[in-house]
């Protein structure tokens, strides 16, 4: 469980990107953070993992106050993190298998063959086989996301952070990636947070949905409640496309 208490974040320019946000992200569930582009989703995610410091408030990982920790203390908690960045952030000097082995090299005390086995297991888990020796520039966007997920789960994380894991992917691949994240979350009882602006993801995997509007938490619920809300801004966001309007119409 990740507890976010009253966090605010502003950069040097003085603009408040996050404004007094309170959220509880639940274990074993895919917690979706949705919102328009520029609403602050990435900043929220990066603040959670400590890539940005909060100006106010605190972040707690299963009752451990991450905000007040120093670099060395955070290092231990961070080994329980897995993160999938929007562009994948694969190390482009390393091959696919080396990317997945990287966290194991840095933090595990396994033998080389055990690390290799673990990396192969993770790649198989994300349905990516026979690509081990290609470099990140030689694989497709969907495959990059898979490698990024495999790398993120290599050390058996307790917390998984995904920033728009299906942006730039076709609808079929998107759904595969979404479901993969949900399966892994439930299988290993991970606290997963997924940033997205894709309503398909909400309908597919939205155990818990948080709507961010201009840096504030505007709405919270699940994928069934979301279609019945009368929150004006949320409705505009959900029913921006003809497809979602049609679904709403059919539901009556």
């Amino acid at each position, binding site marked *: 469980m990740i507890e976010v208490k009253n966090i605010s974040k502003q950069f040097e320019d003085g603009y408040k990107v996050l404004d007094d946000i309170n959220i509880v992200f639940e274990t074993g569930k895919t917690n979706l953070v949705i919102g328009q582009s520029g609403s602050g989703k990435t900043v929220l995610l*990066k603040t959670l*993992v*400590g*890539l940005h410091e909060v100006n106010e408030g605190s972040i707690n990982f299963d009752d451990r106050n991450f905000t007040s920790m120093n*670099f060395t203390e*955070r*290092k*231990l908690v*961070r*080994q329980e*993190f897995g*993160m999938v*960045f*929007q*562009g994948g*952030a*694969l*190390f*482009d000097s390393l091959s696919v298998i080396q990317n997945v082995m990287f*966290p194991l*090299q*840095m*933090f595990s005390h396994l033998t080389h063959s055990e690390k290799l086995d673990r990396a192969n297991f993770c790649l198989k888990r994300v349905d990516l086989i026979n690509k081990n020796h290609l470099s990140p520039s030689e694989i497709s966007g969907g495959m990059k996301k898979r490698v990024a997920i495999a790398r993120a789960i290599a050390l058996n994380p307790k917390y998984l*952070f995904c920033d728009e894991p299906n942006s730039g992917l076709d609808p079929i691949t998107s759904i595969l990636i979404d479901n993969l994240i949900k399966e892994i979350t439930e299988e290993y009882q991970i606290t997963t947070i997924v940033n997205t602006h894709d309503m398909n993801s909400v309908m597919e995997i939205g155990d818990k949905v948080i709507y961010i509007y201009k840096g504030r938490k505007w709405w919270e619920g699940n994928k069934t409640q979301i279609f019945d809300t009368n929150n004006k801004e949320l409705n505009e966001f959900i029913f921006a496309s003809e497809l979602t309007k049609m679904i709403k119409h059919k539901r009556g």
Partner: protein
Amino acid sequence: MKLFFHLGRYTKLMGKVFSRPGKASIFFKQILKEIDSLGINSLGIVIIIAFFMGVVITLQTAYNIENPFIPLYLIGLGTRDSMILEFSSTICGLILAGKVGSSIASEIGTMRVTEQIDALEVMGINSANHLILPKIIAAVFINPFLTIISIFIGIFGGWLAGVLSGAVSSENYIYGVQYAFEPFYVTYSLIKTLFFAFIITSVSSYEGFYCTGGALEVGKASTKAVVYSSLMILLFNVILTQLLLTH
């Protein structure tokens, strides 16, 4: 002031760079990789430049010696001292600032804008230490060898040019190369090389590390890396010369 901002941030970055590395085995592997990419890969360009420097210094010195009372062996001495004092350390330093500096800045800058540095940090890795320290150590270790090699190649180039053009005989040139040799000049040259190696790698890493934006900014960071490390080399050339050579 911008200058103080950069100085402060650079110092802070170096503080992060010079901390204890994670796993020793990985760290040594990184250093070997950097020795190869920063040092061995620069050998070709250093050899070519040193050779032609030696050729030109010899030809110019020969051209300038018109007085028949000036002994011709001074051509060998001139080439030797010019290579040792200035060309091997400073000129090669400037060339490497261009070649190595731009590649370091674009490598680290690309890692920054594609969030690879963030990925390292999220894993709990000190990214500055992991990425930059191996480069600094590798360059500080390998560049003195490049300097020594370039001194020999330059002197050889001078000999070849002198003999082939008939400006000086082989015996005279070699006599000059050995005449009144001052070993401290080599020490001076190597000390400069160490400073320049540190400047090139740390300044270029700094430019890449704090790059924000996209491909365009990576390109700009790489240009800045070359400009600022060259300027710093010129500045430290004066400072070190003043400190080491004037009594």
